[in-house]
């Protein structure tokens, strides 16, 4: 019955797929976690007209920045619990002991997390753009900037979560680590939208954002793998 030499071959692709599917299944079972960041995103944006001024001109001026800052805060919520359950239940340990490279597994998890929590943020922005009185021709640029920008935020934030997941303290430390790293994304994304508002070409900002996305795709899983390995120690 027990033959120690034969084994079913392990493929990286099937490991990647299984993590991705697992994340989707888990999200399906706990839809509240899926909805919470979106509602938060909406509420934060709503606060600004109430706190500053509902004058259309003002809203138009601060709109892109407000939506982006709200998106950053919403992603902080996503990022904060990204690896927590996996760490507490020992799944991270199991990943480290698997022969599949840790950064690949982390990559699968991040990709799934983007689809589960961030894609909804991108999809809901047209509604927010209307609330903030942003002109309709700017909306595609706004959505594009979030489409490229949110994965960067997620990946960089995940590094922070991987570093702090073993600690009992929650979001404050994480924000201190992660928010300064978000500044370039915020600057380029809002400047992209500003260019779009003025009917100018925004390929420059877009290509900078895309290259930041590529760099974070490449480095973040490696850094996260190292951080998780350290935390499990």
């Amino acid at each position, binding site marked *: *019955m027990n033959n*120690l030499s034969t084994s*079913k071959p*392990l493929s990286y692709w099937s490991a990647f797929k299984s993590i991705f599917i697992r994340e989707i*299944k888990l999200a399906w079972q706990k839809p509240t976690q899926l909805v919470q960041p979106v509602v938060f995103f909406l509420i934060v944006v709503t606060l600004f007209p109430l706190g500053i001024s509902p004058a259309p001109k003002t809203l138009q001026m601060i709109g892109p920045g407000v939506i982006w800052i709200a998106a950053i805060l919403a992603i902080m919520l996503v990022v904060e619990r990204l690896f927590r359950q996996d760490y507490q239940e*020992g799944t991270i340990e199991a990943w480290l*002991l698997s022969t599949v490279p840790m950064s690949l597994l982390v990559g699968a998890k991040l990709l799934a997390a983007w689809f589960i929590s961030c894609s909804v943020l991108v999809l809901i922005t047209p509604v927010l753009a209307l609330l903030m009185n942003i002109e309709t021709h700017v909306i595609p640029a706004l959505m594009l900037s979030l489409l490229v920008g949110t994965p960067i935020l997620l990946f960089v934030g995940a590094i922070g979560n991987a570093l702090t997941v073993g600690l009992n303290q929650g979001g404050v430390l994480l924000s201190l680590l992660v928010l300064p790293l978000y500044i370039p994304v915020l600057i380029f994304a809002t400047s992209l939208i500003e260019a779009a508002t003025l009917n100018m070409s925004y390929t420059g900002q877009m290509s900078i954002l895309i290259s930041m996305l590529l760099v974070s795709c490449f480095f973040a899983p490696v850094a996260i793998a190292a951080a998780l390995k350290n935390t499990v120690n």
Partner: protein
Amino acid sequence: MLEVQGLTCFRQNRCLFAGLNFVLSEHQICQIEGPNGAGKSTLLRAILGLFRADEGQIIWSGKSTTQQAELFLQQVFFLGHKFAINSDLTPWQNLEFWSALNPTQNDDFASALTKVGLTGLEHIPCHSLSAGQHRRVALARLWLTNTKLWVLDEPFTAIDKSGVQLLQQRFNSHLTSGGMILLTSHQDLSQEFAQLHTIKLTDNTGEII
């Protein structure tokens, strides 16, 4: 063959053990004993590379495990204090997920779950299972894995008598087919396994009896 050479581990500036040496070869089972906090779990984790040892090395079939991490991990099964069972997924889904990341001899989850007495519970979320049943889901992997070295941290806790017997049977069949087992336990196992080696961890160095 697993060889531990001069292993020294500190945790938070406290020396758990220093210069620990032992050898575990095929068909052998080794129990690590010691009071709470003596570093039993740390020793297991250091062997697997989950804990960074201060000194010493682990040799697996003639080569250091740090030089051939992938080859070594392919032949190791680990069950720790946390058993990597997601409480929102069903036992079946958990095994499915685990088998995608670990070398298995077959993917016969049904019979593995039957073996550990979880028939009928395959498709309900793990959070509605009891602590013992939770543990049995993790132990079901022992009937799927085809690794050579089993490293088990307290495998008998929260398991009833019949379950313990079942596990011991599985251990014996693994040992006869050339496997090796390294485990920590507070139970006396010398009755069940004739060839039991023990390592006692005290305040400073491990002694081999």
